């Protein structure tokens, strides 16, 4: 069965630190990849997505993610985090054979001011 693994459940960083959140998936075929974010008290919303082309994808608020097919990975990065990036981040994968998104367990990111 397809699965998505997020390596860290909780990450605590200081402002201005660099961020990398890991995401690996198990599906061997062609996939679409997503990162969603849930800020405290807000709806889950799309941060960025990849479906073809340049494997380095840029999203909102300075986030980017790199698709490495050989490693089945889609890690999320930001060079310098801000206190307002405190949120829960979810990686999700959609295999091209169906509409269902397979979700990772989420990573709670806390940025210390």
């Amino acid at each position, binding site marked *: 069965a397809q699965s998505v693994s997020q390596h860290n459940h909780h990450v605590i960083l200081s402002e201005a630190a660099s961020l990398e959140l890991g995401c690996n998936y198990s599906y061997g075929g062609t996939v*679409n990849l997503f990162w969603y974010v849930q800020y405290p008290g807000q709806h889950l919303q799309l941060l960025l997505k990849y479906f073809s082309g340049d494997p380095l994808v840029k999203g909102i608020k300075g986030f980017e993610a790199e698709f490495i097919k050989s490693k089945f990975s889609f890690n999320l990065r930001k060079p310098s985090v801000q206190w307002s990036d405190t949120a829960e981040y979810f990686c999700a994968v959609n295999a091209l054979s169906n509409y269902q*998104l397979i979700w990772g367990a989420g990573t709670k990111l806390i940025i210390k001011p």
Partner: protein
Amino acid sequence: DVKVTQSSRYLVKRTGEKVFLECVQDMDHENMFWYRQDPGLGLRLIYFSYDVKMKEKGDIPEGYSVSREKKERFSLILESASTNQTSMYLCASSAGTSGTQETQYFGPGTRLLVL
């Protein structure tokens, strides 16, 4: 902007009660989804619908049913609530025009407590 609304933010119900969770989207989206979100488990799909009166089981449909009588409205029904259904329930919709590349748009969630 897409707006997905859910009928309640918080609900407290007793074991055995029938529970209705309502979701409405205002963007004429074809697809609608019900998830439950539990700490450490991410989002798990309960049911989804790709058209009026059409539904498909997700990963955890047991103990739930759904209804989609109108395009904009997708209801989740807990036939006989149990304590292990205490959770956050999220509704989402997507356009249905771009296949598997589509963004899903989420409602604010309903936090259900079953006593």
